[in-house]
């Protein structure tokens, strides 16, 4: 399997993603600069975390006009698997590939800490390695992770099972106290209607090795490889 790891000016989790895909999962991985106009030959595209264009104007708002984004849209349109993590999620929302928007955290502060999220839908190509309702420990690191969408969009997300992760207590309860950033419905990750594009604020690539504090994020990459192998 060949993974494209997009690099925008200001991406800073690209190397982490590369390391996980290449060295832990043993797959082909290649960095793709944001000016690239081709995703030919890739099986999966990852938009990593970071601060593309310094988060100026709104997070992801400028990166969405990078030339490679037209290719990402085409790739996703053909059913290709696309994973956006943190800033990658923000870019996918700005590009309209995923619905809604990530606003400034309710508490106005940058939050860098471990959280727990519950797997709401394990029927996606990104989560099939997890059991439904499993609680995962992963870090978050963002100032703008407060998911917002209008009522109709939120209802559609719920009805179609597009909410993949919600911030939860360690024992899996969805409570206001478990919500770090004010996200509607404790939403931490969603897929598009077709189910081939996942955006999530927590960092699975930072939770793939015991030495780094846990391996709960590995399932995302294992699920992807399983899905691509079919």
């Amino acid at each position, binding site marked *: 399997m060949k993974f494209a790891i997009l690099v925008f000016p200001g991406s800073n989790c690209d190397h982490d993603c590369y390391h996980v895909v290449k060295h832990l999962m043993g797959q082909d991985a290649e960095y793709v600069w944001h000016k690239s106009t081709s995703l030919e030959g890739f099986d999966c595209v990852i938009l990593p975390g970071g601060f593309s264009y310094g988060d100026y*104007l*709104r997070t992801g*708002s400028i990166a969405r006009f990078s030339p490679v984004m037209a290719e990402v849209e085409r790739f996703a349109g053909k059913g290709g698997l696309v994973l956006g993590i943190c800033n990658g999620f923000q870019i996918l929302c*700005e590009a309209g590939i995923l619905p809604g*928007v990530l*606003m*400034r*955290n309710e508490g*106005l502060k940058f939050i860098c800490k471990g959280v727990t999220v519950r797997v709401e839908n394990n029927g996606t190509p990104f989560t099939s390695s997890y059991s439904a309702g499993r609680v995962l420990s992963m870090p978050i690191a963002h100032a703008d992770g407060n998911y*917002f969408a209008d009522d109709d969009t939120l209802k559609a997300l719920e009805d179609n099972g597009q909410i993949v992760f919600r911030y939860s207590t360690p024992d899996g309860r969805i409570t206001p106290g478990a919500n770090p950033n004010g996200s509607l419905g404790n939403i931490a990750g969603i897929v598009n209607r077709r189910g081939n594009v996942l955006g999530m604020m927590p960092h699975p690539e930072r939770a793939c090795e015991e030495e780094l504090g846990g391996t709960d994020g590995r399932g995302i990459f294992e699920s992807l490889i399983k899905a691509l192998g079919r």
Partner: protein
Amino acid sequence: MKANVYVTLKKGVLDPQGKAVMGALNSISFKEVKDLRIGKFMEIELDADSRDEAERRVEEMCRKLLANPVIEDFKVEIKG
């Protein structure tokens, strides 16, 4: 030509920053403040043959980049 662009949060979208600033005003004796919303103000200088053209172009800029229609409204004023 010059244009002023105001980007504001839509009604119903929470504005924690505005809330915090309002709280600060209330606490330094401006008790009459009942609501406060923070937005963005941009000054744009552009080439255009007419005010209408300038307005049309700046509105297009707002729709494409300067505002996110999911959470924001915008207002354009052409100057000069």
